[in-house]
């Protein structure tokens, strides 16, 4: 009986610990992805202002250079754009974002920001595109900064909470 209880307790503690660690990992991943997104949009800015290559081409290039899972967003959008579906950038981008999100560690509020891109992307001249993208970069940078500041604390907290939470649960159940 005691042995069974011990095994149960161990199981609980391991799982909550893992949960804590995975939460912490997700936070770290989000930071990385925010970085990749900025890289991607930086590339887009130069594609637009220097070579004026159309979005499908630019997106494909970005998709090849950026790491997973952010690359998926651009590859999917490029593929959809080439399909001649007869609808707007808004729909295509939204689909790509929805497709990409389950694989990503980004948060809901990051999603809003990424979705907003389709409201200006490709519908105006170079100068305006550049301005809008720079604004977006700025916003992404702000989010990244916030995330970085909170990461140190929350990462440790997640890990501790995982272990301690497990312990507490075990004590309560005993």
């Amino acid at each position, binding site marked *: 009986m005691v042995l069974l209880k011990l095994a149960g307790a161990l199981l609980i503690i391991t799982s909550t610990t893992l949960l804590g660690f995975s939460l912490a990992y997700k936070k770290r991943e989000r930071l990385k992805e925010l970085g990749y997104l900025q890289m991607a949009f930086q590339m887009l800015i130069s594609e637009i202002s220097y070579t*004026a290559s*159309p979005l499908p081409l630019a997106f494909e290039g970005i998709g090849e250079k950026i790491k997973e899972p952010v690359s998926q967003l651009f590859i999917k959008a490029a593929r959809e754009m080439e399909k001649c579906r007869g609808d*707007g950038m808004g729909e295509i981008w939204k689909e790509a974002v929805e497709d990409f999100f389950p694989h990503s560690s980004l948060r809901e509020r990051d999603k809003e920001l990424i979705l907003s891109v389709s409201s200006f992307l490709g519908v105006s001249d170079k100068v305006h595109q550049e301005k809008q993208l720079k604004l977006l970069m700025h916003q992404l940078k702000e989010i990244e900064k916030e995330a970085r500041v909170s990461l140190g604390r929350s990462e440790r907290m997640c890990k501790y909470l995982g272990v301690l939470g497990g312990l507490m649960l075990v004590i309560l159940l005993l």
Partner: protein
Amino acid sequence: MSKKILEKQVLPLLSLNLQKIIKKCSPFLLERVQEIRLREGKPLMFSLDRGDLMVSIRGEEVDRLSNAYLVTRQDMHNTLQSLSSYSLYAFEEELKNGYLTIPGGHRVGLAGKAVISQGAIKLQKYITGINIRISREVLGAGEKVFKYIVRDGEPRVYSTLIISPPQCGKTTLLRDLVRILSDGFERMDIPFRGIKIGLVDERSEIAGSFEGLPQNNIGIRTDVIDACPKSQGMMLMIRSMSPQVLVTDEIGSMEDALAVEEALKCGVAVIAAAHGSCREELRERPGLKRLMDQRVFKRMIVLSNSRRVGTVEEIWDEDRGRALLQSPPGKKL
């Protein structure tokens, strides 16, 4: 032929709604469409030989405005995005000029609100009118007139001016002449070795270039300079590509005339087209008048659509001052 081109090259670039409607149209109608006209809030219209017509949401030709499908803002927006590969910024120059060329060489005219900077159009926004001209290659269109513009027994041609009102097959004829002259012609009665042709395609209509690559068959000995102003393009061609014939569309200004003169001085023949309905009309424009006074063009071909698109009304021999070919007067409009 035309229907296939339309379905393959043009339809995919329209908004989904419009795609659906046009797919429902009868093949007979689609075969004859020359232009698809979209105007925001106005009926969807096709231009044909016989004039234009309105189309209903079921893809039928209708007479009443109330039955026609009205093009929505969404249609315009999506079509424009599609046409520009979702990247208007990549087409700034085209928006400024008011047209862009899509794969297949079809020309899309755009009209909206002009943004002016320092007295010149910088670009257009709020596009409310789109006109898609289906470019049709009619291989063989030039065969009939070809023999009138080559010199007997020589691989050389006379400088020729094609005179025609809009929509009468001027560019189609020009394009096919380019192809025949460039490839050569192997019929027993008029054997003709191909010659080098420099094509100055200011409006991307003859070769229908997309990203610089001609989409239409313009022959094996043809060099194309795409989207280049005529006078500059002609000089560039003469200097760099040693053409035997220069071909260009729609000349008219004094600048064009001077460039043509320059080309002739270099011993290069010029085949060009001009808007007009008869030879006399051309004299009203100073550039063309200058060329006519100097009797630069040895052959003049007048087109109309009196019987069908591309009816040859007259082929004029300037040296002998008489018509080589004339359509029967009774049948003229």
